[in-house]
């Protein structure tokens, strides 16, 4: 199958963040960046599908400035065949603008499947995958926790609130990938060396105007300090009393 995977370069999700002097972004000093978690599951899903149903091609796309090339190479070191950077000066916060840039590029790609992460860790929008699919005029399943492809059709499972649904759809289609569907492989050392020789193309991103911009970024308000009210079973009555009278949640 010809599979496109749209990935994003995001900071390590375990980091503690500080706000930059501009007040409209986080301070990137000292942060480690990598393929966004959900996007890396999407890459793994693509690689596994092509390994099972081979031969095929997995192409990774990313929108962003040049540092994103390292992220694309990481995906190629996992096994993606080639990469395309849609170059911008800065990665836009506006999910619809990103979707437009991707759709413009993917239109002529002839892909059977276009995969995305459910959302990116930093912007947590969950917009790009579904919007890109709509712009391409292909069906989309969001937040798939299971995905199977056979004979030009797909079956996916997605979590609802307190339930789950199984859906079927024809290819070509887009799917955004949730956690639990696949563990991303770590690049083998040979894969890292091979990635250097794989094609990485750079083109300007056709974004259009950004209509969603960051006015400010702030750390969430600190929770007021709590307290340990006691030890063992003996503390239970006091907890219940506090929940009733002070917190008023019981």
């Amino acid at each position: 199958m010809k599979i496109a995977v749209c990935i994003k370069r995001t900071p390590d999700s375990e980091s503690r963040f500080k706000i930059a002097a501009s007040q409209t972004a986080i301070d990137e000093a000292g942060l480690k960046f990598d393929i966004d978690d959900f996007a890396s599951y999407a890459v793994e899903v693509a690689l596994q599908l092509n390994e099972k149903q081979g031969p095929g091609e997995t192409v990774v796309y990313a929108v962003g400035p040049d540092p994103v090339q390292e992220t694309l190479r990481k995906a190629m070191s996992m096994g993606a065949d080639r990469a395309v950077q849609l170059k911008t000066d800065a990665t836009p916060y506006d999910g619809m603008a990103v979707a437009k840039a991707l759709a413009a590029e993917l239109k002529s790609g002839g892909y059977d499947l276009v995969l995305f992460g459910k959302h990116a860790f930093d912007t947590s929008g969950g917009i790009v995958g579904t919007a890109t699919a709509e712009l391409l005029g292909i069906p989309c399943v969001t937040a798939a926790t299971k995905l199977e492809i056979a004979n030009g059709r797909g079956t996916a499972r997605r979590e609802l609130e307190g339930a789950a649904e199984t859906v079927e759809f024809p290819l070509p289609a887009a799917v955004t990938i949730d956690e639990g569907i696949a563990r991303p492989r770590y690049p083998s050392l040979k894969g890292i060396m091979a990635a250097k020789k794989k094609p990485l193309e750079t083109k300007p991103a056709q974004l259009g105007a950004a209509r969603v911009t960051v006015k400010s970024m702030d750390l969430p308000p600190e929770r007021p300090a709590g307290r340990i009210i006691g030890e063992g079973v003996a503390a239970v009555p006091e907890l219940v009393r506090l929940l009733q009278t002070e917190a008023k949640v019981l």
Partner: protein
Amino acid sequence: MLDFYNIDSVLSEDERAVRDSVRRFVDERVIPVIGNCYVEGRFPKELIPEMAELGVFGANLPEEYGCAGLNNVAYGLIMQELERGDSGVRSFASVQGALAMYPIYAFGSEEQRKQWLPRMAKGEVIGCFGLTEPDYGSNPSGMITMAKEQKDGTWVLNGAKMWITNGSTANIAVVWAKTNGDKEDKSIRGFVVPTDSKGFKAKDQKGKLSLRASDTSELVFQDLELPADAILPKSGGLKSPLMCLTQARYGISWGALGAAMACFEEALEYSKNRVMFDRPIGGFQIQQERLAEMLTEIVKGQLVVLHLGRLKDAGTMTPQQVSLAKRNNVNIATDIAREARRLLGANGILAEYSAMRHMANLESVYTYEGTHDVHSLVLGQALTGLNAFK
């Protein structure tokens, strides 16, 4: 890991990617099991296929033999990350790569290279290195293992080796023996000995209190017959095994840092969380002095091996330069492990924490591949021209 001197900025993207990949493997696959393996006294053999898949065996040997074809800084980073997990795991990779695959690559015929190296890169054939003998450790030139050439070109091997890592797991042993009754160094040749040969016996050495997650064996050769093509044709003299040791020692210089980093990070984290006298112990002067000392030695050690790796890649590295790095980095690592263990207090004696395991392991690393003292004499001789070995 804290990168205090921003060494990442002078690593290439590939080198960082290699380091990160192996680090992830060690975090996810080695660290969860290695404490138990150490206590049980077993090497986690089940990880061999994954290590092979990752590409850590003979990683700096050429791609045409199925190897990763990495530069030597990347190779060093691999050893660093493996030993961050455990010295026994890194020892397995060192032996397989630098002491079994390397001699076949350096001294073997093209047929031998093609016959063995790809399968060894895949972990399908495991190798070990037979140089040290029960009575000849620091002085390998005294070895008594002897190979006698027969009229038809085959060989018969007799002797014993000891302290052989991977000895009981190995499919082949690269054995160094004197030949045809000649007791001089110059008669030393290398042989690829299949371990299923008649007359080959490997016995695990029991009762180790160090490198417990590693197979260490005695090898005994009794009238062991070898075909003519078992010999490594380009080998000759003590120089050959010593070249292999230089490769391994280079990797060990990086590896020891990995163990030191593991101990340092664990101690640092502990010091921030462990509360005594109503505050984290990391706020007390004695612990801060400990941590500052550890960090300083790690940074110095990193810069030594980074430069050494660049020299190796440039083709100008000398064995004496490697001696300096091995001697220094293993020594500071033993100190760091011990101080980390002390910082951890009573918790530091538990297998749940890594400090004491690393501390015990590093005693072996201090002793093998040329003891600390031997490397002092290497440097002494290089500086003065005077041989203080005898």
